[in-house]
Each structure stands twice: as structure tokens, then as C-alpha cells.
């Protein structure tokens, strides 16, 4: 790209005036990357690709979908039956949402394990959490669009949460609904916002990448790079690694889309919405279950809503709750164990969230909720102080040359 500096050629001419090509060159080709990234670092680019898959399939679906309480359910069946390959596009979109969450959750747990939220990457971490919040809003509104039983009752339960807000609660809920019940006005605005939000996500993703490239990627050792010997260019090393990872995950994705497309969904959503008939168990999509469990763990409605929101908001404070100077859990013997306990705790919350709120599930859910918050508020600050980290290697290149590092 040496000619771009002088503005030679068409690309050079444009780039001299709008540095789009050199920006791409810096971002996707030259970007110096730690040479020791493991497969857990594949999930960021995977998340970006699933976002693109969702946007492309979503735009096609929007061309055939009817946002009205009379027409929505039938228009989905029209897509499934009459539109050419409509079933394929919809199944990709449905399961793409699930896979988007899977890769993003893995991406977040990777950040937790390797301390990717620590200085100087706090803002990078925040932007990621904002993406997560936007994703949740988008996914929730998208699930309402088919106007099946779970769409309707899920929307009813979640929008009603806002009534817990003191004094103005009812007014807020009616404002959200655009009426006095979950009805056509809500479906229409959810469709509009479901179309808008992915583009907001794209915007925040760009900021996320800018923040990432400002200080570069963290790495499994969690130590800063000492010089050029610790880095390799993004292309071809990480482009090929990301492509391999992408192809691997797409293979699993294809298996689900073609052979178990409704496995992750709820059968009740193939029943048209009926405001007079409440399903036996109202459950959200699987990726909301941990938060749903936290919501239900608190006996008080407002308290439950606050707990649920706090479950994510607390992650914003992680850079300060974690008192350890060492980033990577590889060198933190105590924290590493508690990391896996947190992982198990989230699995338990998922399980409880999908189970009826009765019997021993209530107690298990409450204990798991308490543990979730205790991990961040109590354990993390204490472990950082009492723990003696293992000695850190001098540099990435030294560590890469000498011995393989175990994740």
C-alpha cells in the first residue's frame, strides 16, 4: 500500500481524501496481534459474523413479514411455506440469535478468565457490555414478532416488569404498550425497534474495535507486549485462524439449522397468541434464563427487577472490583477455581430459570443468585488481595519459545 501515501491510482486517490482503504489495511491486515492467542480469541470475530448473518437474514425476513396482530403469525407461516427458501432464512435467523448469544457468552467468559477488562481496556469492556444489553433488547423484541403464545406472554411478563417502578410504573408500562394491553401498537413498535437496534449494535461494535485496537488485544498470559518480537500481523495468521474457527462453528450451526431447527425454541410459540389463555409455564429464550432465574429469586417484584438489572450492571464495575494486578487466571490459582465456580453457578441459574418456580427450585435459585453477586462483590476483591499469583513470564516471545502455556 505504499502508493496510497502519494495518492496514486484510483484507490490511492480516494484514500488520500478518505482513508478508508488504509484504515482497513491497518485494521484487518497489519494490526499487530500477540502471537500467543488461543482459540478462545476466535469468538470476537465470530460474534461479528453472526451479527452480520442476523442483519442479512433479518432484512430478507422483514420483506415478507407483516407486523400486525392479525397478520404476524400467518406471515411467518407464509415465509416458512411460500417464500423461496423462506424456511431456511427463518431457521438461520432463529438459530443465529441463539448462536450469537453462545459465542458472545463465551467471549465474555473469556474476558473474565483472562482479565481482559483490566486497565487499559475498561472502556473496551464497557462497550462490550453495552453491546450485550442492546443484543438482549433486540432478541427480546424479535421473539415477540411471530406473535405466538410465548411471544405474547413473554412480552406481557417483561413489559409488566416496568410497573415495578415506583409512582410512574403504570404510566411507563402504558407508554411502552401504546395502549392498555400488549397489542398491535406494541407489536408495531417492537418491529421498528427490532430493525433499528442491530444497526446501533454495529455502531457500538465499531467503537468496540476502535477501543480494542488502541491498546491491542489482551492475550492468554495477560502480560503486555515488550516489543515487535511479541506480535505478528493479523493477516494471514489470525485471518486464517478465524476462518478455520468460523468454518468449524458454522458446521455445528448447520447441523442445528438443518436437523434440529426448533430444538432451541419453545413449542408454544407455534400456537398463535391468545390473550385469554396463559401457558402453563412462561419461559423466555434459553439465553435469558440465568437472568430470569435471578428475577424470580427475589420475592419482591421491584427487588427482582433491580437484581436482574444489577446482574449485568455489576459487570461494569469489574475493573475496580477485581483488586489483582495480574490479568490472566492462568497465574491466579485461587481466582481460577472461583472462575469455574461462577461458570457452574451460571449454568445452575440457567437450569433454574427454565424450571417452574416451585419447590426446591426456589431455594436453589436464591442460593445461586446470592453466589452470583457474592462472586463479584465479595470474592473478587478479597481474592485479589490474599492471593499470591504465580510468577509471570518475562515476555510473550520467551514463553512461546520455551514451553506451551496451558490455558
Amino acid at each position, binding site marked *: 500500500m505504499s502508493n496510497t501515501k502519494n495518492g496514486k491510482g484510483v484507490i490511492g486517490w480516494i484514500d488520500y481524501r478518505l482513508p478508508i482503504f488504509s484504515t482497513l489495511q491497518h485494521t484487518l491486515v497489519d494490526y499487530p496481534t500477540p502471537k500467543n492467542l488461543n482459540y*478462545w480469541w476466535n469468538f470476537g470475530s465470530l460474534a461479528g459474523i453472526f451479527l452480520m448473518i442476523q442483519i442479512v437474514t433479518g432484512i430478507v425476513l422483514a420483506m415478507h413479514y407483516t407486523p400486525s396482530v392479525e397478520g404476524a403469525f400467518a406471515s411467518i*407461516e407464509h415465509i416458512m*411455506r411460500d417464500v423461496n427458501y423462506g*424456511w431456511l432464512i427463518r431457521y438461520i435467523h432463529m438459530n443465529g440469535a441463539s448462536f450469537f448469544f453462545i459465542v458472545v457468552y463465551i467471549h465474555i467468559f473469556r474476558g473474565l478468565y483472562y482479565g481482559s477488562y483490566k486497565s487499559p481496556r475498561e472502556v473496551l469492556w464497557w462497550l462490550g457490555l453495552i453491546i450485550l444489553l442492546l443484543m438482549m433488547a433486540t432478541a427480546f423484541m424479535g421473539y415477540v414478532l411471530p406473535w405466538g403464545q410465548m411471544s405474547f406472554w413473554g412480552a406481557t411478563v417483561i413489559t409488566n416488569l416496568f410497573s415495578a417502578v415506583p409512582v410512574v410504573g403504570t404510566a411507563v408500562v402504558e407508554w411502552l404498550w401504546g395502549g392498555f394491553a400488549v397489542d398491535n401498537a406494541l407489536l408495531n413498535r417492537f418491529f421498528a425497534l427490532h430493525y433499528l437496534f442491530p444497526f446501533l449494535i454495529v455502531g457500538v461494535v465499531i467503537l468496540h474495535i476502535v477501543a480494542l485496537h488502541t491498546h491491542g488485544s489482551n492475550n492468554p498470559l495477560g502480560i503486555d507486549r515488550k516489543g515487535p518480537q511479541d506480535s505478528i500481523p493479523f493477516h494471514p495468521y489470525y485471518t486464517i485462524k478465524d*476462518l478455520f474457527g468460523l468454518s468449524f462453528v458454522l458446521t455445528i450451526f448447520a447441523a442445528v439449522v438443518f*436437523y434440529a431447527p426448533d430444538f432451541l425454541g419453545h413449542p408454544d410459540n407455534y*400456537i398463535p397468541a391468545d390473550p385469554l389463555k396463559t401457558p402453563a409455564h412462561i419461559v423466555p429464550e434459553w439465553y435469558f434464563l440465568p437472568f430470569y432465574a435471578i428475577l424470580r429469586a427475589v420475592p419482591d417484584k421491584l427487588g427482582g427487577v433491580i437484581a436482574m438489572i444489577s446482574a449485568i450492571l455489576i459487570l461494569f464495575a469489574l475493573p475496580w472490583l477485581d483488586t489483582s494486578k495480574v490479568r490472566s487466571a492462568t497465574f491466579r490459582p485461587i481466582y481460577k477455581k472461583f472462575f469455574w465456580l461462577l461458570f457452574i453457578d451460571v449454568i445452575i441459574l440457567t437450569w433454574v430459570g427454565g424450571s417452574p418456580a416451585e419447590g426446591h427450585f426456589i431455594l436453589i435459585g436464591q442460593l445461586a443468585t446470592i453466589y452470583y453477586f457474592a462472586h463479584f462483590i465479595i470474592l473478587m476483591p478479597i481474592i485479589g488481595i490474599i492471593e499470591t499469583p504465580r510468577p509471570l513470564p518475562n515476555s510473550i516471545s520467551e514463553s512461546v519459545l520455551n514451553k506451551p502455556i496451558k*490455558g
Partner: protein
Amino acid sequence: MKNYYQIIKIFFISFIFINTFFCKAFAAGPDAKITKMNFSFDGIFGVIDKASARRGLQVYNEICAGCHSLEHVAYRNLLDIGFSSDQVKEFASQFEVMGEPDSDGEVNMRSAIPSDRFVSPYLNDNQAKAYNNGAIPPDLSLIIKARAGGASYFYSLLKGYEDVPEDKEPINGYYNIAYPGNVIAMPQPLYGDDVEYEDGTEATMEQEIIDLVSFLAWTAQPELNDRKSMGFRVFLFLVFMTSVLFLSYRKIWKKIKG
């Protein structure tokens, strides 16, 4: 390589865990007994048995259609399960639908054509309620996808009618061991010999139920056969591409890893 296996392991274990727990939550209550059946359309290479689905249409049309609509399916769709164009036209023409307004604004009934959707047994929801003690019999287009347990549940339900056990109190409905709560409003629809199959197959109760399940599995997932055959090709391609990319990755990284 170690990391690679670790990722796969954790990915799958958590995936399976979450989903086993998740699916448990959907299963019908403890009082519902569902027999897990193997149908022609199960598994990776399973396809809808079209001859069975055609017999199933006959069962639907002669027994179920009295009460249950099939609103998302058009008569033309029957071409997919092996009916000829003329057969579809003839089948459709036995039903009457509301026609389009003529030049005087009069709306007359006309016989249905292949592009019409299956005609509902009711004029509207209120009529459906009035005929059925206040409850609308569910539309059957998606019924296989819309119930936990799917085809096996539907099979078990149709076979699940029994006399009320003596220890139970008198019930307002019918006793069915597969139905959640065991009390169902629908009387037993199939007993065997309810239809006389056009292809000469003996119409035992088991045969009728399996044929009806085949038909409704098709109405719920008309794309099933296409989906599975395309899926197999896509999957093979992706396995091949993943292997090629993995080898490329190893080759490119040789310089770094030594």
C-alpha cells in the same frame, strides 16, 4: 491442539447440559405418559412417507376435518406429497369458499381451487366456540411442532384413551393417559376401520394414527425432505472446508510455531 479439544469439550458439555435441563421444563406433567416412537421422518436421513401422508389426508378429511381446521395449508401444497394436478383440483372442488365480489358487489359462494387454503369447518371463531362448548378445537397445521413431544406425543394421545380409573372422581371430558392432566375435551376420534383407504391398505387403528401423524408432520414441516437433503450436502461441504482451512492454518502458522 490441547486448547482446541478443550474448547469443543466445554462447548458441547455446557450446550448439552443447558438443553437437557431446558427441555425437561417443557415436558408434559408427570401424569402424562408418552410413548417414544420412531417415525419415517425421524433421524438424519428420515423423510416424510408420502404414501402414508396421502392416506393421512384421507383420515384428516373424513374424521378430523369435522372439527379441526388446517388454515396454513393450501390445496396446491398437496402436490408435494404426490397428488397429481387433477387430483388436487378435484379434491379442492368438493369444498365451498366465499367468492370475490362480482360487478354488482354480490358475494357468492364458489367451489375451492388449488390456490385456496383448506376450508375451515367453521365460519368464524365464535361459531367454533358455539359448536364445541366454548373452546376452539386447535388448528392442526402446526400441531406436531406446537406440542412438547411432537409426533410421539400426538401418536400417544390418539392411542391414549382409556376408561376412567375407579379411584378417580367423575370427570367432565374423556380420560387420556397421554394428555397433561389426563382429562381431554376431545372424544376418541379413531378406533380402526374409520376410513376405507383408497389404496387398499387395511385401516387398523395403528395404521390410521401413523398415517395421520405422517400427514400432520408434513403439514407442520412441508420443507422437511428438502431441508434434510440440503442439510446433508451443506454439512459435508462444511466439514470439507473446515478441514482445508485447518490444514491451511497449520501450514501458515508453521513459521511461527516452528
